[in-house]
């Protein structure tokens, strides 16, 4: 048997996490470097995976399958299709930047016991999250997926609750309580979703007698497994609920602003750019493939919710006073687009959605991390506390602007391609929905530019007058991301080529065809 590449990609960060956690308290710098190296190693492995992946090959590649818990019908079953491999790559790609950006976020600020090692913990947790996310992108066994879908909540929870902005770290009890409120909210929301999904998972097993994605899909395809309509719908709802919480879809979104607001910028990136993607990814992989009929049945409702998310998220972003919360609401709007694309049930929509997941990951990372650098300088998250920054820190302002432009999906930057694909994909099947969604691009411009204007332009505020520009470490974080944004905006082919075949598969699973152009249809 060949080298278990997929396992390795997940195991390496896992081991890294343990190793990092084990670094003695005094050697916290070593822990940082260790974490960074591990994440880079993972990136290398992910790159190999990407290289090994053959877009025109079998649907699931690099598969591994071992018995795990026969009594539960559970196998340790891994395999990636185009969508999965793209997201694995994204995750592995972002991690080094997250770690680098959070370099000083977890330096101990008060004297705990000798054994209190926040720094080690911080980076260990990040790596743990990476491992779990990656494996849930690779799992082709529903149970295996579920395990890590749930388990990743715990490290995330500690990351959110345990580490706040340096701004608040001066014994600010209120901030601490807010933070733990956010963490608890995050965990409970997702736990509830997950538990409801657990019921559905069990139900699926009772109905299908197996957890293997392929088996079930095949069985459904050749009719050997028949699901009663109502059963299928209930199970679908069970799954979808969990993913909708994770995604997050209106009205299950309220945990995100708290979480992203209270967490440090790198962790916020971790949440929205990586962990939440598992939700949308799972909709595409599990909801559609396991319950095609139910998915079609639910589509109208979901489209409406997605639309609401888009507009509502954007409007709330406009109304925010807190930079990070603003980005959070912007993300909610973007997740609306992703879900819209998935459930438009067109090739463009779903490819666009997948592309969107990747691009949104990168663009949010860029914007949020720069915002983090900004916040760490001034020690405040309030937009009102800034002004005229571009005069004192032009590079910071410039990168911030580019991040913002990516967020409003300016043509030429990566997000434009995905957003337009989603819109077109939606429009071809649901013109009205498509048009309403298009309003999102205006609102996006609004909240981004307002944010930029209020923070970066105008007369220089006294508090920011001494603000230093981006440091080398910070540039190292931002520059590659921006380069990537531009590259993928100009030349998205590498990703679309990988994603398209997978999407075609999914489309055939749900037995949907793209609508014909009218002119040809007329002929």
């Amino acid at each position, binding site marked *: 048997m060949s080298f278990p590449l997929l396992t390795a990609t997940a195991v390496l960060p896992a081991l890294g996490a343990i190793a990092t956690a084990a670094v003695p308290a005094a050697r916290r710098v070593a822990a940082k470097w260790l974490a960074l190296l591990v994440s880079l190693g993972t990136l290398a492995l992910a790159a190999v995976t990407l290289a090994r992946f053959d877009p025109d090959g079998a649907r699931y590649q690099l598969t591994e399958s071992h018995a795990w818990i026969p009594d539960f019908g559970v196998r340790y079953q891994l395999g990636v299709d185009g969508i999965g491999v793209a997201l694995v790559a994204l995750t592995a790609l972002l991690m080094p930047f997250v770690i680098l950006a959070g370099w000083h976020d977890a330096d101990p600020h008060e004297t705990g016991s000798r054994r209190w090692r926040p720094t080690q913990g911080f980076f260990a947790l990040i790596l743990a999250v990476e491992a779990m996310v990656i494996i849930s992108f690779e799992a082709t066994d529903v149970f295996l997926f579920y395990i890590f879908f749930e388990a990743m909540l715990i490290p995330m929870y500690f990351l959110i609750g345990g580490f706040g902005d340096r701004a608040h770290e001066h014994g600010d009890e209120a901030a601490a309580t807010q933070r733990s409120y956010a963490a608890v909210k995050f965990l409970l929301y997702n736990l509830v979703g997950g538990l409801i999904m657990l019921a559905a998972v069990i139900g699926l097993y009772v109905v299908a007698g197996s957890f293997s994605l392929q088996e079930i899909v095949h069985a459904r395809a050749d009719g050997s497994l028949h699901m009663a309509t109502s059963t299928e719908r209930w199970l679908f709802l069970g799954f979808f609920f969990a993913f909708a919480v994770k995604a997050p879809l209106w009205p299950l979104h309220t945990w995100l602003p708290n979480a992203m607001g209270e967490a440090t910028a790198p962790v916020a990136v971790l949440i929205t750019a990586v962990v939440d993607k598992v939700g949308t990814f799972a909709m595409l992989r599990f909801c559609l493939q396991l319950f095609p009929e139910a998915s079609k049945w639910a589509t109208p409702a979901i489209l409406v919710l997605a639309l609401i998310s888009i507009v509502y998220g954007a409007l709330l972003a406009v109304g925010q006073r807190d930079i990070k919360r603003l980005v959070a609401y912007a993300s909610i709007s973007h997740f609306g687009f992703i879900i819209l694309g998935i459930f438009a049930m067109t*090739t463009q929509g779903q490819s666009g959605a997948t592309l969107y997941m990747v691009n949104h990951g990168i663009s949010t990372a860029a914007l949020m991390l720069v915002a983090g650098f900004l916040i760490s300088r001034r020690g405040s998250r309030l937009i009102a506390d800034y002004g005229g920054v571009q005069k004192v820190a032009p590079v910071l302002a*410039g990168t911030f602007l580019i991040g913002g432009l990516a967020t409003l999906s*300016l*043509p030429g930057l990566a997000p434009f391609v995905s957003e337009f694909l989603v819109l077109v994909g939606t*429009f071809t099947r649901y013109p009205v929905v498509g048009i309403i969604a298009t309003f999102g*691009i*205006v609102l996006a411009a609004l909240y981004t530019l307002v944010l930029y204007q209020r923070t970066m*332009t105008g007369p220089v505020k006294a508090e920011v007058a001494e603000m230093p520009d981006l440091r080398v470490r910070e540039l190292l974080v931002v520059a590659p991301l921006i380069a990537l944004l531009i590259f993928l905006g100009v030349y998205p*082919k590498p990703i679309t080529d990988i994603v398209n075949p997978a999407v075609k598969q999914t489309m055939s699973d749900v037995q949907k065809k793209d609508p014909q152009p*009218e002119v040809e249809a007329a002929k």
Partner: protein
Amino acid sequence: MENLIALLIAAPLLGAAVLLCGGRRLDAVGQWIGTVLAAASFVVAVVLFADMLGKSPEDRTFTQHLYSWIAVGNFRADVGFQLDQLSMTFVLLITGVGSLIHVYSIGYMEHDERRRRFFGYLNLFLAAMLLLVLADNYLLLYVGWEGVGLASYLLIGFWQHKPSAATAAKKAFLVNRVGDMGLSIAIMLMFTTFGTFAFGPLLGTEGHPGIAGDATEGKLTAIGLMLLLAACGKSAQVPLQSWLGDAMEGPTPVSALIHAATMVTAGVYLIVRSAAVFNAAPDAQLVVTVVGGVTLLFGAIVGCAKDDIKKALAGSTMSQIGYMVLAAGLGPIGYVFAIMHLVTHGFFKAGLFLGAGSVMHGMNDEVDMRKFGGLRKYMPVTFVTFGLGYLAIIGFPGLSGFFSKDKIIEAAFAKGGTEGWILGGVALLGAAITAYYMTRVMIMTFFGEKRWQPDAEGHEPHPHESPSSMTIPMIVLAFGSVFAGGFFSIGDRFLHWLEPVTGHSEGDSPVSALTVTLATMVLLVVGAGIAYLQYGRSSVPVTAPRGSLLTRAARRDLYQDDFNHVVLVRGGEHLTRSLVYVDHTLVDGVVNGTAASVGGLSGRLRKLQNGYARSYAVSMFGGAAILVAATLLMRAV
């Protein structure tokens, strides 16, 4: 030869990249890099032009396909260029005027420490604008379309420390975004209707008619209107005109290049480029003409009331573009003249703005015309060039404006029917008003007694002529303003040049060309005369008089901005604020509420655990009783 097309864009793009990423070490030489690369692009354009002239009118369409950009399902967007006579015209205008304005800026921005970035933005603009006119499909055009929007955003807000500038920039971008919405919807419509949005198959090329006509008229009308919406955004047409006035916050060269000569005319390009669509959708065309006509008057009226020289010119830009849009709306009758007026306007309006810039340069950046006066002695070159531009724009016989504008007025009448009369009338009226407000500007600025006084710091402005780096471009443009129109019209050169692309047809005008010309002349004299009586004879008060109702309305852009402010801005603020409340109390409240109620229930149930063994026993006894009863019941039922 074709492969040079990419070079057109590459040069300024390189410049932008180098200048913006280059860092401080390039501050000294920034302006040179930028100018040289712009000029290089112009040279390439000229070479291509020469090459094109060498070919027969039929195969003057060059194409260059770079690579497949987006390919998903049957959705295909390529990065490829199409250079035909239409694009060529624009390319020459953009690179030519662009280069001149680069040169001008060297002098104008001399003392600005962020000069390097300024030239970077200018180059970025050139690249985007060229992409816009060279793209061979609508999606790529969209990239250029938003690209110029970005550039204009950056340049309007170039002096970001001024809140007014930042706000103006944001406003411009947002209003344009509304237009962009139209463009993207149009593209989606094209995709769903035709399965493609590439010029070649859709609009057809020389000899091969495109499939644009195949769709139902309803669809085409929809597409047309969406394209018009886009055009309105970019070309500051009613109802999306509000941003142009504020855009004058930008440095004057920017106003000249972007907000007079090139970018704002992109809408006209879009309409003319989509001729195939509009020709098949008369309703859409009608709307286009109406928009054009309305804007024509709107801009003109606004232009009459402004005391800020740049804002006055902005109003005139609006109205001139109104002419072009109107012409474009007339269909094959008007396309050529729309473009022709666009080019001549490019010359004289750019010239006028540079003149205004030169004036401000000499007057400590004062923009209020009421504080000018009698400047002709102090800055003769500016005076002459500005004057020529002035004569051109009001359509003084023999100068550029005269030819291009007359053609449009004729075409308007030629539309025929009542529409023809109405449009023609409007166009004529516009000509009169143009004459009025331009004369006003001219007089208030260069004639009469000097009215300037010390500014806040007490610096007495001492007007002086600008350096040659600024005057030379003005002179060049002046030449253009004088001769371009004649050169184009003699033997209908321009018509023959453009016809293969846009097609052309002579409408049957109810009135002869001569009558139109005469009518124009008369109205011109009237307009100019009134202005002279108002401002030439009597002295100009330094503080603006209250003015008539119309004047006040015009000063406030006919309250259109206030409308936006009240309805959109305030309304939006209220909406968002209430939504934030909803999100916090309702959506979140439900969740927290559930949690709280569970907690409350817990608190109440907890009381049962009162510590008394006997009450525990009671619960056990009761439980036992229930258990027994239930078991028996199960059997009973």
